[in-house]
């Protein structure tokens, strides 16, 4: 048994900066010889160690004491081992000394690792965290580029610059993921190569050793630029996860400055082409009237015409919705005053519904037509125009709050439902609407005007029956 002289100083030279097993072996021996932490210097290849190590007359293993034959067991907690393995990969030259000090302390205080407020414990945790982050960034930011090897086999080569000694430790991750590819990861701290069967290591590489591009990168950059939503710009969040120091090795990162610079314009364009900002919903029917007079949200508003507002009591239990104003409505500025309106009045009267007690309006507020000489020929509004004008119809609905809504024709039904329905399928049955009102759908009276003979009679009967059903329903509701 060799006596350890107090005051002696030991230097341990590690063969590799990431050789945890070697450190562990030596650390165990030193503890068994009772060498206190301040008497050991740990020197990694290329490192100078601390003052003592530099001064030492002879460097190296020769000076290490030999463990006594019946040496005591050295113990450490699972947690320590877990952290130490990772912390040993950190590039901090003081890491092995720190780990030894902690191992030393664990011998007299087995629970020392549990004290999270302890400075050594905290430092080891910091090292572990930094190494794990570095490994995580390596998993994420390695970008392979293809080179053709002889025989046409593809070889995937990446360049990466880790902060810590993680390359060897992370080889397994890439092997498990790309088991059936030939690949190399080149780094300034050493390289790893996999040929589908064996792992090989080689010394440090330079950036120029790695290929400069890959034909797929252009596609990848297109993807990167397109998946970004300019309306959600959050540069800080991106930078905290993908710090600038990694950018130079990420082919897509070159796009970032332009994407950020252009985001506002793209967002503005999204809003612009996103339809028209209709402003807030007006709070009174008069305000709706003023707003539609100014509205140019769809192309119909650009024609020479005037907006036609609905009319009727502000608290009408029944709301009747037509398609759009016609030529005469446009001239007079009132809904349902042309031929179709007169026909509607007749049928309403026969059904016993007082038009004066209903709120009568249209799904589209402006008259859509094509000029034919002096005449203006009615044109049906497109689905998109109805959907746009729905904003105003909903504003009227919100204010009048009718119990029952009668939609005349498919356009009116779309204005209320947001989808196109077939009249023959939905007529005669009420449909619940958001907010509690119920919707009845029937044909538009102008449809009757276009029919003759039997067909007209048949449709007229259906129309009358629909109105009668609405009348009955209103009575039921006590409205």
């Amino acid at each position, binding site marked *: 048994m060799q006596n350890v002289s107090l005051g002696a100083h030991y230097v341990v030279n590690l063969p590799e900066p990431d050789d945890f097993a070697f450190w562990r072996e030596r650390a165990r021996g030193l503890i068994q010889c009772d060498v206190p932490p301040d008497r050991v210097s740990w020197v990694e290849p290329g490192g100078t160690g601390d003052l003592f190590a530099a001064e030492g007359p002879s460097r190296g293993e020769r000076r290490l004491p030999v463990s006594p034959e019946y040496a005591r067991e050295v113990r450490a907690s699972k947690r320590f081992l877990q952290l130490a393995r990772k912390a040993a990969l950190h590039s901090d030259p003081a890491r092995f000394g720190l780990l030894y000090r902690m191992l030393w302390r664990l011998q007299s205080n087995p629970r020392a690792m549990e004290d*999270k407020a302890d400075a050594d414990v905290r430092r080891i945790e910091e090292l572990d965290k930094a190494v794990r982050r570095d490994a995580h960034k390596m998993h994420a930011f390695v970008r392979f580029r293809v080179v053709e090897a002889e025989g046409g086999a593809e070889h995937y080569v990446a360049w990466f610059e880790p902060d810590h000694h993680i390359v060897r430790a992370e080889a397994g991750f890439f092997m498990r*993921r790309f*088991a059936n590819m030939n690949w190399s990861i080149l780094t300034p701290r050493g390289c790893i190569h996999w040929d589908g069967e064996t792992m090989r290591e080689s010394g440090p590489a330079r950036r120029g050793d790695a290929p400069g591009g890959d034909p797929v990168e252009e596609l990848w950059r297109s993807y990167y630029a397109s998946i970004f939503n300019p309306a959600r710009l959050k540069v800080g969040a991106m930078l905290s996860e993908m710090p600038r120091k990694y950018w130079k090795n990420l082919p897509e990162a070159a796009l970032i400055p332009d994407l950020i610079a252009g985001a506002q314009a793209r967002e503005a364009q999204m809003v612009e082409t996103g339809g028209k900002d209709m402003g807030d919903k007006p709070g009174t029917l008069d305000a709706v009237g003023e707003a539609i007079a100014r509205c140019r949200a769809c192309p119909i508003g650009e024609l020479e015409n005037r907006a036609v507002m609905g009319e009727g009591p502000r608290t009408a239990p029944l709301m009747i919705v037509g398609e759009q104003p016609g030529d005469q409505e446009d001239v007079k500025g009132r809904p349902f005053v042309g031929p179709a309106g007169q026909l509607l009045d007749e049928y309403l009267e026969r059904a016993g519904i007082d038009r004066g007690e209903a709120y009568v309006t249209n799904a589209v507020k402006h008259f859509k037509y094509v000029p034919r000489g002096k005449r203006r020929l009615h044109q049906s509004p497109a689905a998109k125009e109805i959907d746009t004008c729905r904003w105003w119809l909903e504003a009227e609905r919100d204010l009048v709050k009718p119990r029952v809504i009668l939609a005349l024709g498919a356009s009116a039904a779309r204005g209320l439902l947001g989808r196109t329905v077939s009249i023959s399928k939905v007529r005669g049955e009420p449909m619940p609407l958001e907010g509690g009102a119920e919707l009845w759908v029937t044909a538009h009276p102008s449809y009757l005007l276009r029919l003759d003979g039997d067909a007209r009679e048949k449709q007229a009967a259906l129309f009358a029956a629909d109105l009668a059903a609405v009348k009955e329903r209103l009575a039921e509701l006590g409205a």
Partner: protein
Amino acid sequence: MAQQLSLRQKLEILADAAKYDASCASSGTAKKNSVGGKGVGSTEGMGICHAYAPDGRCISLLKILLTNHCIFDCHYCINRKSSNVARARFTPQEVADLTLSFYRRNYIEGLFLSSGIVKSANHTMDQLIEAARILREEHDFRGYIHLKTIPEADAELIHEAGLYADRVSINVELPTDSGLTRLAPDKNARQIEGAMDRTKSRILQAKDERKRFRHAPRFAPAGQSTQMIVGADGASDVDIMGRASALYGNFGLRRVYYSAFSPIPDASAVLPLKRPPLIREHRLYQSDWLMRFYGYAPGEVAQAAEADGNLPLDIDPKLAWALKFRERFPVDVNRASREELLRVPGLGTKAVAKILAARRHRTLRLDDLARLTQSIAKVRPFLVAADWRPTRLTDRADLRSLLAPRQEQLELF
């Protein structure tokens, strides 16, 4: 038909159309790797974000649509029938090839494939499945696959999707039925829930079978998720949280994603046209965390909301809750239970774990706390420490068991 689009043009259109979907996670699936196989791919539990976009969102999957043609006309959706956007369509083979070329270069963790509805729901679902099948069967791809299923498709097809995918999702789209009726008139809330319910049963059944037969096929091992759009309709935060907690409860969802409604080109006028409510989205995610990791009941998170049913935007929901229930504070860091500490604004789950561990060794003082938490200023008003007492100390004498240190058995070094 217009001239042929290049693969790159299609990718631009179909990635652009996918950017409104919030889900991106590639975590929590069964572990697999390509050792012993013929293809590439691995999943090791934690998903990896391979890049971040300037919107701060992680890019871990190739997130694209198979096509943005759609027979539906949902107002909030850029792909709706009546929208004027450029349309494109990938073949399943193209999707598989793109996924592989990106994966082999380590750009992505896998594929997240969704689609507009073309021809019919079943036809669309068939195509989605075909892309996944090519990847799994022809290329032995072992990376992550997330398929968005079409609720209107046959149950058998959704089942098939789950056999190839790590995760399946079915979007509920809007938090309330009335919002759905108004903005997605072609969709049906009951149908969506029916599909979720069937998926849930399949997942449970497959898990059960795997317990008994090691080689029973996996079915969506990363579970199912959904997305709700926030700010397109009038639903309040309380409505949204209520819906989310019902979804977690009823359908065993892994995640509910919230997507702040952002202006879409060629949108319908029934939608609000403004910047997406990102802070609101953030507050909803925070409330989600409180329910999933901090032991808050859904009703409790709702108590943090203001009279209009919305969470305050200027403070986080945990602080909002604490300010409403001031009588529950301060709590004593040296004696309080885990549950109580978790309620302290500014203390995360990790800080609480550290406090619990550290206090077995010492009585914590304010400067100890400063080392264990992110910001001492934020937590100080809610805590009592050995040398700190903002107001009266709440008396708790029954915490011995919590304070008693657990002895850890040391192992041979």
